[in-house]
């Protein structure tokens, strides 16, 4: 994070003693790892537990804070060589890479791993491969059931260590994409289709010894064929890792704070501290020392559907932007330690190209006067009545946030009626290009820390999805903006690209198509024996490839 008053990033919890190898690390999680197939996983930067088993062409830099948003080579020797205007990306594998059974990792294995992610049997994952690889939109995977060709010609493996990807358009972000688990090598001979996840073949420092109950419990052990010398990212201190999931988040935090028995050597990769726990920890210094703070590119915002009246009027959207009282919204989701007010759509991190702006200053508690003014200009002198749609499930899109918004808008003379929808219904509604509500609460997270995956699905007119999940709720289809998207995404100079993403964000923001509310902050508690706590701004989660228990 480059802004905000937080006290730096997490430091090793247990003093300055050097982390050492050995011991058993326990991971207490709430979500079960029910998908453990690299083709199905949809993780940012290769995931956390998965990245102990799956190595990818590139990976995220395993450092705390802002440094952690960088992409670095993993299986490949470098971040890839772009050619032909960044439509062709060539990678070379490091020498001597081996699977857990000692057989060599070849470029064909990487290609096969990508190919199988196209199979319908192994649905899931991010859409980029399909969108960018030549022939990706029609390819149906290497299996018998898929129609058409069984191989994808746009991936070439001229030799055992070289792999070439041919894209439809220029993509500067390809190194980021190559961090995803679809780029994990999978030996074709050992592919068991949907059963592969029960025992995926490891290329990382640990291998799966036992996968109980569809990812309920994963027991990992050192992979003897993994070489520290060929992997400068993963530290792999503990000898074994025991991932137990399906736990209640309150219980996880309680166990970590009690830290008795094995729990002293425990961490969590998916549970953060809730408001009540924070309130409690606030009084306890020794506990506070065990809390790490993390950021992940995420924005919670109000979305408009300008097809619905009166949100077609920019004045109305502006009025709402002026009227919003962010501090009560933030309190409703747990207060200032769990959320930071957002006035920009892009997360406040340099990697995304964050450029601060506040086109409709509302202060902490909203600016009713300005809002009334804007309303009057739009023709609503006597206020107006609108409907806000939200999820009935407690949480970031839940009723408490909705009520907070309702009350701050009321001050500006806008009467808000609340309409709650049950979880699935709500998702279906908000992703429905034609039928999405006029005003609703939603959020967006990054697939990797760059502007493209954050902005394109929301504002690129060509990403309006008619009969599927649509995220461009405002249905913005501005040729100038579209052109800008194409231009920036072709840049291989990521720093230069970031600057332009920030500018684009600010430009789009003027149209008040969204009302950014806040960026969440994550507070992670670890067991008392845990050392070398690293929380990067890429994932916001403690990186278990770095922790040590000794």
């Amino acid at each position: 994070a480059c802004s905000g008053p937080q006290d730096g990033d997490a430091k090793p919890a247990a003093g300055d003693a050097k982390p050492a190898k050995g011991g058993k690390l326990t991971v207490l999680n709430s979500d079960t790892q029910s998908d453990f197939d690299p083709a199905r996983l949809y993780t940012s930067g290769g995931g956390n537990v998965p990245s102990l088993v799956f190595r990818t062409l590139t990976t995220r830099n395993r450092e705390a804070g802002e440094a952690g948003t960088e992409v670095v080579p993993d299986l490949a020797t470098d971040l890839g060589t772009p050619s032909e205007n960044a439509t062709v990306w060539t990678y070379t594998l490091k020498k001597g890479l081996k699977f857990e059974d000692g057989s060599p990792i070849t470029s064909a294995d990487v290609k096969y791993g990508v190919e199988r992610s196209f199979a319908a049997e192994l649905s899931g994952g991010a859409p980029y491969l399909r969108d960018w690889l030549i022939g990706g939109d029609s390819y149906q995977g290497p299996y018998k059931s898929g129609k058409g060709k069984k191989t994808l010609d746009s991936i070439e493996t001229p030799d055992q260590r070289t792999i070439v990807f041919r894209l439809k358009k220029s993509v500067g972000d390809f190194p980021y994409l190559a961090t995803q688990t679809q780029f994990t090598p999978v030996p074709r001979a050992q592919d068991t289709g949907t059963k592969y996840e029960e025992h995926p073949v490891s290329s990382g420092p640990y291998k799966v010894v036992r996968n109980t109950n569809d990812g309920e419990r994963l027991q990992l052990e050192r992979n003897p064929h993994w070489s520290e010398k060929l992997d400068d990212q993963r530290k792999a201190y503990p000898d074994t890792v025991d991932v137990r999931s399906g736990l209640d988040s309150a219980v996880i935090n309680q166990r970590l704070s009690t830290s008795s028995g094995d729990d002293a050597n425990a961490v969590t990769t998916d549970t953060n501290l809730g408001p009540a726990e924070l309130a409690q920890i606030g009084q306890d210094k020794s506990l506070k020392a065990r809390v790490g703070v993390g950021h992940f590119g995420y924005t919670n915002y109000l979305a408009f559907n300008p097809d619905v009246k009166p949100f077609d009027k920019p004045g109305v959207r502006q009025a709402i932007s002026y009227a919003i009282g962010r501090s009560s919204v933030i309190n409703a989701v747990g207060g200032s330690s769990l959320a930071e007010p957002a006035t920009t759509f892009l997360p406040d991190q340099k990697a995304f190209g964050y450029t601060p702006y506040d086109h409709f200053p509302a202060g902490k508690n909203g600016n009713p006067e300005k809002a009334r003014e804007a309303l009057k200009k739009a023709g609503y002198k006597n206020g107006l009545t609108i409907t806000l749609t939200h999820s009935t499930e407690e949480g970031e899109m839940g009723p408490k946030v909705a009520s907070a918004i309702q009350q701050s808008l009321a001050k500006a003379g806008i009467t808000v009626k609340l309409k709650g929808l049950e979880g699935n219904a709500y998702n279906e509604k908000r992703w429905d290009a034609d039928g999405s509500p006029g005003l609703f609460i939603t959020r967006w997270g990054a697939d990797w820390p760059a502007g493209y995956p954050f902005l394109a699905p929301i504002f690129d007119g060509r990403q309006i999805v008619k009969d599927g999940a649509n995220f461009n709720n405002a249905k913005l289809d501005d040729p100038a903006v579209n052109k800008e998207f194409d231009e920036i995404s072709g840049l291989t100079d990521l720093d230069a690209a970031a600057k332009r993403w920030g500018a684009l964000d600010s430009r789009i923001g003027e149209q008040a198509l969204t009302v950014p509310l806040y960026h969440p902050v994550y507070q992670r508690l670890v067991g008392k024996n845990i050392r070398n706590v690293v929380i990067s701004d890429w994932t916001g989660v403690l990186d278990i490839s770095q922790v040590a228990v000794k």
Partner: protein
Amino acid sequence: MTVQDVLTPGAGAPPAPGPAAGARGVWRRLRGRPSAVVSGAVLAVLLLAALAAPLLTALSGQDPYTYHDELVDSASGGAPQGSFGGMSGEHWLGVEPGTGRDLFARLVHGARVSLLVAAGATVLQVAIGVAVGLAAALGSRWADQVLSRVTDVMVALPMLVLAIALTTVVSDDFPRPLLLVLVMGSLNWGGTSRVVRAQALTLRGLDFVAAARLGGSRPVRVVRRELLPSLAAPVITYAAVLLPSNIVLEASLSFLGIGVRPPTPSWGQMLSTATTWFRADPLYVLLPSALLFVTVLAFTVLGDAVRTALDPREAGRLRVGTRKEKTRG
């Protein structure tokens, strides 16, 4: 007097004084029990508070919906500022963490929904359960088979599953509390029905039921006059247990987002969101818990008193005040 007089009505004897003392006797016996009076009074107060919620909150000058950002400590998870969960002259019972909404107002308004929904659902459950249980126990073998199997299935149906399905399928305009009553009531009668059937099976073999049938009573009458009075004890006891579990069920439904629609408060909802706060802000959890507990206790004690009052064999025991003598006779 001739036999003719005996068998033809209206002749001879003077008109009868007073109607059957049944209901009145029960009432009198109830009034004589301090536990019944106290629990009845507690319930009456709760009910009144629920009904007069708007009045009470007007008195306190608060409403259950307004956020008070200034009253919570944003930096530490939104905990209420000040001691005892932010209790003050304005906020009698403190405020809700995160939002600063007035807890007193939310509690009394919540009582409306909770008591109403739970009581409505209980009544429905008991009514359906008794009807089905009796029909199964007394009807033909076929009817028993079908009804018992249907009961099995009703019992087997995980409430939450159907509740989720129903509440999402039913139109949004349908009043939520009513929907909850209907869903909870119509899905959760299996227990009552089983208990009633089991009891009725034993009862129906007794001579007094045979006598009533011989006397020309139709099944409905036999049920009303002979069986229901004997079933009342287990049913009332069961209902007194069902009621609190319905309040808790409403909590679970609210927790899953299919209960009453926020921001309308209910005890269940308050409880389920409060759980994690029990160390940071104990009052937030304690208040709805305590109210729930008092309600449960009052219902149980009252249920027990009614059960005892319904039993004429207990009557002598109560009135004569042989308190000091051990009941072990």
